[in-house]
């Protein structure tokens, strides 16, 4: 899983890194195009377009039959069953490509979210850093120290919360491109990079201990050590939004809509008629 993460990161760093100074819309369209081409490719390879079309036609025919012969008692009695059966066949034709594409799509989107879900804090903005400690390291008796902090105007904390065994800091970012804080919790040191600008960068809002499925969910940074006192580090970055006209939307939502639109367009261009 780690190798896959690293490979995807390399690909995306190369893809989106070039757009760091460019438009968020361009990057979104590029990401959506990448995911949708994968989706269409999987459907092309795993699906059977002729069979899909045939089953869809059969389903439409059954519906038409019911409309045309609704005065016929025999049709009325059997139509519902036949429509349901045709529908089930149609869905089953789509099931296999959907299943095959689900895993790579999820992984790809998780990686894309690391770019699009959040944006870095702006200069002078406030960011909250939360550290979840393991149960065997009670927050009140575990020593915490800021070893080094660069690129911050002000650091408030830690707030120690015994009820949920957490530590919080508030970081005020300064007029630099990247800020970095190093904390010593117990005997372990943790370094957290906080990018400061409006460019498109890969962010790690959540870093967890090294478990494959967690890496899949939060793929952007190296995982935490399994033996250390910190289980999870959460950095509260602001959500990245884009404006569609005057409406403010989440960038990842716009990405999903774009992916759907580009997938349908791609399928249509390749002669795949699913709907």
């Amino acid at each position, binding site marked *: 899983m780690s190798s896959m993460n690293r490979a995807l990161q390399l690909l995306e760093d190369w893809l989106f890194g070039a757009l760091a100074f460019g438009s968020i819309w361009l990057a979104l369209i590029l990401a959506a195009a990448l995911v949708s081409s994968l989706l269409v490719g999987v459907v092309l390879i795993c699906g059977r377009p002729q069979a899909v079309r045939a089953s869809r036609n059969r389903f439409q025919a059954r519906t038409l039959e019911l409309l045309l012969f609704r005065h016929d008692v025999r049709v009325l009695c059997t139509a519902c069953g036949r429509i349901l059966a045709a529908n089930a066949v149609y869905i089953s034709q789509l099931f296999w490509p959907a299943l095959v594409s689900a895993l790579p799509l999820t992984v790809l989107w998780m990686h894309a979210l690391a770019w699009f879900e959040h944006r870095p804090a702006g200069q002078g903005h406030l960011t909250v850093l939360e550290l979840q400690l393991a149960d065997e390291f009670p927050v009140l008796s575990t020593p915490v120290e800021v070893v080094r902090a660069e690129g911050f105007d002000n650091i*408030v*904390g*830690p707030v*120690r919360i015994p*009820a949920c065994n957490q530590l919080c800091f*508030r970081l005020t970012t300064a007029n630099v491109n990247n800020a970095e804080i190093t904390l010593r919790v117990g005997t372990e040191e943790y370094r957290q990079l906080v990018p400061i600008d409006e460019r498109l960068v890969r962010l790690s809002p959540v870093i967890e201990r090294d478990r494959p499925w967690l890496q899949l969910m939060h793929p952007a940074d190296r995982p935490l050590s399994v033996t250390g006192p910190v289980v999870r580090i959460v950095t*509260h970055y602001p959500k990245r939004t884009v404006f569609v006209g005057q409406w403010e939307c989440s960038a990842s939502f716009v990405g999903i809509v774009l992916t759907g639109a580009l997938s349908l367009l791609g399928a249509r261009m390749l002669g795949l008629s699913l709907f």
Partner: protein
Amino acid sequence: MNAEAGRTCRQMPRRTFLKAATGALLAAGCAKPPAPSAASGVQRMIVLGIDGMDPQLMRRFIDEGRLPNCQRLIERGSFLPLGTSCPPQSPVAWSNFVSGCNPGGHGIFDFIARDPLTMQPYHSVSRLTGTSSAMPLGNWRIPLGAAAPQNLRRGVTFWEELELHGVDCTVLRVPANFPPTKTDAVTLSGMGTPDLQGNYGTFTYFTDDPKHRSREVSGGRIEKVVLDQHHVRCQIRGPANEFLADNPSVEVTLEVDRDPVSRVARLVVQNTTLVLAEGEWSDWIVVRFSLMPYAVEVSGICRVLLKGVHEPFGLYVSSVNINPAEPSAQISTPPDYARQLVREIGYFYTQGMVEDTHALSAGVLTAAEYRQQALFVHDERLRFYQHELQRFQQGFLFYYFSTLDLSSHMFWRALDPGHPQFTAELAQAHGDFIGSLYERVDQAIGETLATLDEQSWLMVVSDHGFTSFRRQFNLNSWLLDHGYLQTTGPAQRAAVLTGFPDVDWSRTRAYGLGINGLYVNRKGREVYGTVGSGDADRLIQELVSGLEAVRDPETGERVIERVFVARDVYSGPYAEAGPDLIVGYRPNYRASWDTVLGGIPRQHVVDNRDPWSGDHCVAPMFVPGVLLSSRPLRSSAAKLEDLAPTILRGFGVSIPDEMTGTPLI
């Protein structure tokens, strides 16, 4: 049609011809009329509304060299004391300004009005109107029509006239304009815009201080909380839920975890996590109140102040403002303007009266904390103004600053050694606050002066001045003790009772409501009216002479300078809707807080022990406003209602008959 034109028509395909004809018709119908040629050569006019700028204080600070830009403006153009409205209250005064007429023409007579059919008071500027019928559905109710706020100010505004004549207008935060008048101008509502609870500001203070108990206070609520393992859940109150029976308030939870030792805490509300140290204010927090799960929600914004972390814990939550990015009521024209502003400058206060004077009066905010908040407001307003000024090229721009007014109300006691709330420590710590605000206003004037050219005109307008408010007069107590007001039994002379407790309307002849209003209980107007039209004039004369003779039993001074008869000072279609008499107090006196809402305390004149220590609701001649102009003015005396005609004349636009003011150029 000549031959050539006929040939052109014949050569043109029918569809193309129809398209062209439709386009031409649309262009003719929808395009703005050309801007009138301004007789005075004005292409660009800026009016800065500075609520509560006092001419005497301004002159004093100019003489001390603290207001260099005001000095430059006076040298360049002119300075006049500006006759204020009767009564000199901001909603009335600014309505005079925008409509160019007295209250009889626009219908706003006081902060508070009363419904003569129920005798209940309401805010005079706007009111929720619409159907209240709903279809019950178990615990839920489906409203069968939308209730909507209605702007109660009548009359035509000068910006509507300017827009009609092709002058682009931007009018920001002018009082008494909620919801904004429908217009093509860019407007943002100001004083009169409620918070999400529908009030003019409702703070909440969460504390475990044993000195406090949970209770409602004027303009807010104090909520006693218990911290369990350094954790507490606070409920932020939002709007009433119209979709549930009994309309309970919707709430969102704010979770606070404090450090067991250090003076810091973490706050979590919905998707927002904050870390605050003791004494710190938060940025804007967006809160969403769900009225119907997954279907209807209302969004608001608020700020919090972590007053204390340990012994005692204290968290002040400001009133929840309408979120300008997702406004639940119209606060701007065009409606998208507020949203666009959030994109450009970030969130901003939308509530009309922002500075939390109630929290200072209730002892929840200290004077220093109030000052911090007032400066947030002023700095935000200044940033907003600079943003608009930068892109303002031509047409008309109005911008309103409120901080000077509300801070003068709260800190006048630091300037007046005769005030019951004056202390040497207060004067030492905050005696210069009002002066520093004049300097900040002067900065805005300086930035505007720097943008003026030959075609520009800048006016700085304040609606009234200020005086001290040392003693309170209980008008209804005086009316009761002189037999004009009657109660059903022995009167409950408690200061906390408002809304005319135990008043026997069938024997009452006159009653006081609002800050300066005195009403005759007229037959045919009030639901339980007792005074016929024949007796009203005699009663009015009796009240005028009686009230003008009232003296303060402690100082022997006259309390009231003059009682104005409405029919002598008001004219216009709404003149009959207001009070019959307007009580013009002498400096240092004002109607008591109990009088405003119909309370009947025991004494007639009492000390004012509230931090709200300066006021302007006295006889208008004592508190004129300020008019500074970058161009010389023709007149040597001006009043607020002259300004709308002056602005129209400046752009060469004809003055409508409804505007009774006189142009100053």
